[in-house]
């Protein structure tokens, strides 16, 4: 087994809005190994994007850190000074690809100037020419047109923008790349290009590991090594890609897998729920299983206590009645 | 319903609305309780506040407090009517320009911009000097027809962003004509913007009335906050130190405008969640 590059322990990150607390990430633990792609899947509002943000260690208000650890090798970044974090970690060790490339770049700034701003922040000794040289080289090596560097963001197509952002995010060869739905707003061929690009970056060891977040579970099949399923602020199931895709244990995973997914273009933040019913109110979390409301196999027992992880072989699942691996029939019955 | 609930939750909206309603209700209920004629000349020129006349008398020897309350009613009335007219015209032009697009949009948008660039207050002054009848309604209408461009602009922007939406295409495929689409597929989606624009138009209508009246172009035989100011200025209340003649209308106009703007800000934050700073 490869060594861990990052470890997350019982991470709690909540939104605090007008005195009320929304528990978007509620005790998540993860391990990320060298060279792997960890997929995180879940429907919108389950907290996966918040998790991606939190993993960077930068809690932007109204998001607040409430507990747990994020360890990057030996550095504990969850409690790091924000200035130091931004200077020494972000972009350099952990980098981020945001969800909507459309608006992720300052519309009035040329790519060139943005790149200069980013690199100067981390390596002030570089001259502008050196930076541009390095960037051009990188663009070349990833077979992206160098011309792009001198463009304004609005002069680029959506797919191109997303690729440019991916390249910018990895300019400083970060160990971890957090990709938050990098493909959700794109057409199929652009999606493929992005996935190819991420794979290339991994192969060349420009990035060491990737956390790939998406609401389209099937997409992970082509890229992820392991997958964690998230529901209502928690990880509900963890396993290898084939395990999750082909023999889900949690009823929710099963539903995610079997539902038809139709992402609507241009309607960011308003994706239709992929499974029937809606996730619980994260302001007031009920006792017991958070999926109970929507679970076809729910029993009275489910609603009493918080569900802990159960080990089934080498797999873990938060369910009292996990599905059997063979045919998806509830094991307890 | 949910919208209403979220509106009530906005402190800004709530404060703005309550101030506005309080002022409006005072001006509506007071005449029912107190039947004094606001035009009655009960004293002499600029008598200072006393037990009998709490806010003193004005240049006509009238009770300033009673005038103030009636004036508020007039001003709010003019504001509402002018706002309604401006919103109607602005919405019609904005929706048509934004939805139909092309040449129609070009023409309508150019007209809108023309009226935005020419100082509308000058036009307003000229138009109202040409009025033979200085009735309240006429005044409100004139203010309305000179202030629609702002609404037209906002509505047009919203409409053109809607134009390519799925549901509009579906409506087209289902054989709806343009008019029906504008009415049933576009208006509901821009209604919150229209309402916000309406609130702003009411505020600006009240200001325009006050400005016009202050220049002596206001309604005759009716007290409005603007005419009160105009008299105060004309009859040298500032020089003679009769603060009670110009202070109440100033506060009145500012409070009404403030309440409407505050209401608008509250709504803005709800309809554009990004502004909430979350």
């Amino acid at each position, binding site marked *: 087994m490869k060594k861990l590059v990052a470890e997350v322990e019982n991470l709690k990150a909540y939104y605090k809005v007008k005195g009320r607390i929304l528990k978007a990430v509620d005790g998540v633990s993860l391990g990320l190994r060298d060279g792997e792609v960890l997929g995180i899947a879940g429907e919108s509002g389950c907290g996966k994007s918040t998790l991606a943000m939190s993993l960077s260690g930068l809690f932007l208000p109204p998001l607040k850190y409430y507990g747990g650890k994020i360890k990057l090798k030996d550095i504990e970044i969850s409690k790091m000074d924000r200035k130091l974090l931004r200077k020494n970690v972000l972009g350099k060790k952990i980098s981020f690809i945001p969800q909507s490339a459309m608006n992720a770049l300052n519309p009035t700034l040329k790519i060139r100037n943005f790149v200069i701003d980013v690199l100067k922040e981390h390596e002030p000794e570089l001259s502008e020419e050196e930076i541009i040289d390095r960037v051009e080289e990188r663009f070349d090596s990833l077979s992206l047109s160098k011309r792009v560097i001198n463009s304004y963001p609005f002069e680029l197509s959506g797919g191109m923008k997303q690729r440019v952002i991916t390249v910018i995010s990895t300019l400083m060869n970060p160990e971890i790349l957090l990709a938050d739905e990098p493909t959700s707003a794109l057409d199929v061929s652009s999606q493929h290009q992005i996935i190819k690009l991420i794979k290339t970056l991994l192969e060349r060891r420009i990035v060491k590991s990737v956390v790939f977040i998406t609401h389209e579970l099937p997409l992970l099949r082509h890229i992820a090594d392991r997958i964690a399923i998230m529901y209502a602020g928690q990880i509900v199931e963890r396993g290898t890609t084939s395990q999750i895709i082909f023999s889900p244990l949690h009823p929710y995973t099963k539903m995610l897998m079997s539902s038809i997914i139709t992402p609507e273009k241009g309607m960011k933040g308003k994706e239709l729920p992929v499974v029937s019913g809606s996730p619980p109110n994260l302001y007031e979390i009920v006792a017991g299983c958070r999926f109970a409301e929507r679970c076809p196999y729910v029993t009275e027992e489910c609603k009493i206590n918080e569900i802990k992880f159960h080990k089934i072989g080498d797999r873990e699942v938060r369910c009292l009645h996990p599905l059997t691996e063979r045919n998806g029939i509830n094991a307890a019955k | 319903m949910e919208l209403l609930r979220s509106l009530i939750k906005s402190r800004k909206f709530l404060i703005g609305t309550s101030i506005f309603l309080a002022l409006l209700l005072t001006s509506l209920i007071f005449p029912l309780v107190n039947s004094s004629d606001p*035009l*009655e*000349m009960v004293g*002499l*020129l*600029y008598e200072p506040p006393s037990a009998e006349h709490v806010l003193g008398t004005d*240049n*006509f*020897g009238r009770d300033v407090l009673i005038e103030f309350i009636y004036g508020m009613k007039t001003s709010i009335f003019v504001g509402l009517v002018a706002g309604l007219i401006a919103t109607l015209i602005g919405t019609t032009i904005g929706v048509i320009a934004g939805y139909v697009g092309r040449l129609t949009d070009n023409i309508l948008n150019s007209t809108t911009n023309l009226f935005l660039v020419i100082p509308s207050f000058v036009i307003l002054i000229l138009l109202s*000097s040409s009025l033979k009848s*200085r009735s309240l309604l006429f005044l409100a209408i004139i203010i309305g027809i000179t202030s629609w461009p702002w609404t037209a602009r906002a509505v047009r922007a919203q409409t053109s962003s809607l134009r390519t939406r799925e549901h509009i295409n579906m409506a087209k495929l289902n054989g709806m004509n343009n008019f029906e689409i504008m009415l049933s597929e576009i208006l509901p989606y821009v209604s919150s913007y229209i309402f916000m624009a309406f609130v702003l138009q009411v505020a600006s209508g009240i200001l325009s009335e006050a400005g016009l009246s202050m220049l*002596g172009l206001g309604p*005759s*035989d009716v007290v409005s906050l603007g005419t009160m100011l105009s008299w105060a*200025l*004309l*009859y*040298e209340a*500032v*020089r*003679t130190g009769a603060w009670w003649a110009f202070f109440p209308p100033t506060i009145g106009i500012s409070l009404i405008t403030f309440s409407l703007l505050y209401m608008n800000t509250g709504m803005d934050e709800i309809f554009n969640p990004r502004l909430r700073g979350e």
Partner: protein
Amino acid sequence: MKRGVIFLSIVGILVLAAFAFAIGEFPRSETLYVNGLQWGPPTNWNPLAGNPSWPISAGSGRELIYETQFMYNMINGKLEPLIGEKYQWVDNLTLVVNLRKGVHWQDGEPLTSEDVVYTLELGKKYSTGWSNLWLYMKDVFTVGKYEYVVKLKPENPNRLVVTDMLVNVYVLPKHIWEKIEKDNNYDIKKIREFVNKNPIGSGPYKLYSYSPEKIALVRYDDYWGKSVFGKLPVPKYIVHPIFKSNDDGNLAFEKGNIDMSQQFVPQIWKMWEKGLPIATWYDHPPYYVPAMIPSLWFNLHKHPLDIPQVRKAIAYSINYAKIAQLAMTKYSPTAKSSLILPFGGEKKYFNEEAVKEYGWEYNPKKAEELLKSIGAKKGRDGIYVLKDGTRLGPFKVECPYGWTDWMVSLQIVAQSAKKIGIDIQTYYPDTPVWANDRMTGNFDMIMDTPAPNALPSQPWSRFYAAMYSKDVPPIGQLAFRNWGRYKNARADEIMEKIPTVTDENTLKSLYTELDKIYMRDVPIIGLEYRPALFYEYNTTHWTNFPNEKNPYAPPQICTDGAGIRALYEIKPKK
């Protein structure tokens, strides 16, 4: 370095130059500041132009640059000699005027009867302010250097208007204006455009400088009057700042920056109650000397205002005392139902008994009785309806926006009428609209002053402006007097007769008869008495202004008519 030195020295020079410019243009102890006589920026000093600026403007600075032949004294109604020494009606059609010898123009040329005759004839040649004289004058000719004769038309011998000429027509220098006429090709349009920046008159002052903010005059030290009056006017400069609002002017006056003001200052007594050195002619109500009668005019051709009883009912409904108190802030005695002033020069014609018997006063009860007497009934809304179903109102009553005392007067009229059941609403348009409505007869009721002048021809001019029907076109066309289009043959006859009568007893009975017709028909209602000119002074910088207790000159604002004598007597304070 070098550049810096140059720069500094330039700045230094500029600063020095600036100080040199600013220091004492008008030394305070030699400058009299007046205001309220000019409202817009000055445009011209051309008496032929129609709208000349102060001090050439009508009736506010008559003896400063150009002079009239005689000076009118509004207190006793007398004509005092100036350029003219004496005048005499030798018969009903012949006026002989003798001029003073030794009068000379400011360029040194002598002033003779040639100049006067030339000036009067200009009015025949062109449309000028005094062209109307030629309706009554047949001829004017000189008799030697210092005498001239006016012959009246036997068919229209109006002696009153011709006498007015002696105090309100400026005498112009022939040798200068002949040239101006010629230079402009005798085209009146071009002559009117002549600004006359450097007017050469016969008076004690010359135009010194002007700008949109002020007009300044400087004393002409070779004034012919120096030898006659034994001295020159005291102020070396007279400056008239032009304020854009009453507020500014009144504040400047209050602060002592203005010495003499002709502005309407509401409740002026409050200023001296505050301890300011301010006074008016009287130190008690009405504070000013009343001279005109701002009135309410009816459209006599609009039903139901064509019914005299309706007009009279309105006359009874109006609270005249309130108008005097509130609108005029006590500057007016309570108005009586007569077109003759019960004060000053015309008091002798005022017939108290006739007014008592035929006139009206504030009496709402009587007003309603009058309406009931013609069969009017009160409608449910409290407004009377005539037998023919005509509702009494809404009538519009009109005066210009910004004429503050008038606006209040009309508010009182409206409120008074409302109380007895007549619906009157106020309307305050801009002045041109009001002026036009007035002339075309496009009004229900309108406020205006008939013959707003203090002239020897009063009260005849007032009756004439209000009631004379000849040459007055019907409603819809432009009239220039008699806005209501009143018509009464006997009244016309009396008005034609009065200017030819010299016997005081006959005059008195004619005026009484005319006034009775007025009170019977109520074509207009006098609302208040107003001074021709407001006259208030501040003694911070100048003292010894004339007033009731020291009446060495009439309250004609120190610069007009006989009032100019004050300029010789006021004293600088330090």
